């Protein structure tokens, strides 16, 4: 079997019913898709299959033979984050980060598909994605900002220390 993952063609040796999630994480070492519930209920394993968001835990490898897969690793780089990633940083759309890969890809597909900044439409598009840190409001705000095409100066968001702690004893 062959997969194109983040633009690179890969020969796959896993058994045909191995989940795409396991192919990505175990065989290819691509670890942004997380193994959450592994039964389609949480959304953190979502990747793009030919541009469409899919739960990689529910997709057998044989079903995507010859298809194109995009994970967060293919969305942007640390120096050049994708717009939706910039929006998540600027709006603090994550806490622990475990659900973030799935949210990013579902949100990216939503925006690429012409999605607007309407909160209801965003919630509908992201249905099935869990955030147990209860960060939904900031996630929806981030997706709305990215959908509007807001620009962000992340040097003011993350580049400047905003809090200093007195540690005591060390000068």
């Amino acid at each position, binding site marked *: 079997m062959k997969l194109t993952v983040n633009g690179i063609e890969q020969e796959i040796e*896993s*058994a*045909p*019913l*191995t*989940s795409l999630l*396991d192919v990505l994480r*175990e065989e290819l070492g691509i670890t942004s898709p997380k193994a959450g519930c*592994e*039964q*389609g*209920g949480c*959304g953190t394993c*979502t990747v793009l299959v030919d541009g*469409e*968001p*899919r*739960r990689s*835990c*529910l*997709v*057998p490898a*044989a*079903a995507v033979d010859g298809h194109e897969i995009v994970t967060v690793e293919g969305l942007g780089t640390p120096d050049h984050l994708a717009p939706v990633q910039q929006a998540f940083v600027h709006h603090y759309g994550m806490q622990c980060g475990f659900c973030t890969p799935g949210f990013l890809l*579902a949100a990216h597909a939503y925006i690429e598909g012409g999605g607007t900044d309407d909160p209801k439409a965003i919630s*509908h*598009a*992201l*249905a*099935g*994605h*869990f955030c147990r840190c209860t960060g939904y409001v900031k996630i929806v705000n981030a997706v709305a900002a990215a959908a509007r095409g807001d620009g962000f100066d992340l040097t003011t968001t993350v580049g400047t220390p905003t809090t200093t702690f007195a540690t005591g004893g060390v000068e």
Partner: protein
Amino acid sequence: MTGGVLDVVIPTTPAEAAEAFGDGDGITVLAGGTVVMPELNYGRLRPGKVLMLGRSGLDTITREGGVVTIGAGVSVAALEALDEPLATAAQHVGDGEIRAQATLGGNLCAEPGAETPRGDLQAPLIVLGARVHSTGKGGERTEPVEDFIAGGMEGRLVLDVAYDEADRKTAYTAAWRPHTHHYSILTVAGAKTGDELRLAATGAAPHAVRLTSVEASGNPEDALKDTDLRDDALASAWYRSTVLPKLVARVLDDLA
């Protein structure tokens, strides 16, 4: 890691799929994967032979001679644009990603789930008077959805489901439990074509049931005569017995 399966067959035509299925003995059918993959992921299912339907061509919808025929491999998402009450029911299955992957055949044949609702398309199909065309032991056969469900799906491969286009009034209502999408506890579907009334419910028995007692009497409380209410993670049998007649009354009101 999952896998380790002895034999995986990927047919490329409906005829090949039917032939590979044979009498269904020892075969696990994998269409969308939303039901089977968790079983494989958790090691609860170790199949000997798997029939993957994704490329079998069973994913077409046709409208010919007043009959809508839906291939078993058509996604739940594609049903959202078809006739009511099927469309509304389809819109409330899982979430968008699940609906794009899950199939009509899987929804019809899924074993009842203890933690999540399954088979929410069965009641709308029953009230549409839909017929299931399947193959397996003894060859092909076509029968009403309710007979297919009652007769057991073991050893059957659904090929397509068909219903007649008609000037019918329809209704659909449900009790939902909030989640990141709604989980349906109970759903009731109804259709009135001329003088004929058809009602069905899901979540009121292991599979969908036709509410023939209410069809005959018009009394919502009679729904409890047609059901086999159970406790599960979504609701107790008592809760269902309280809510079901109210949902039936709402559907009857909408059809009046």
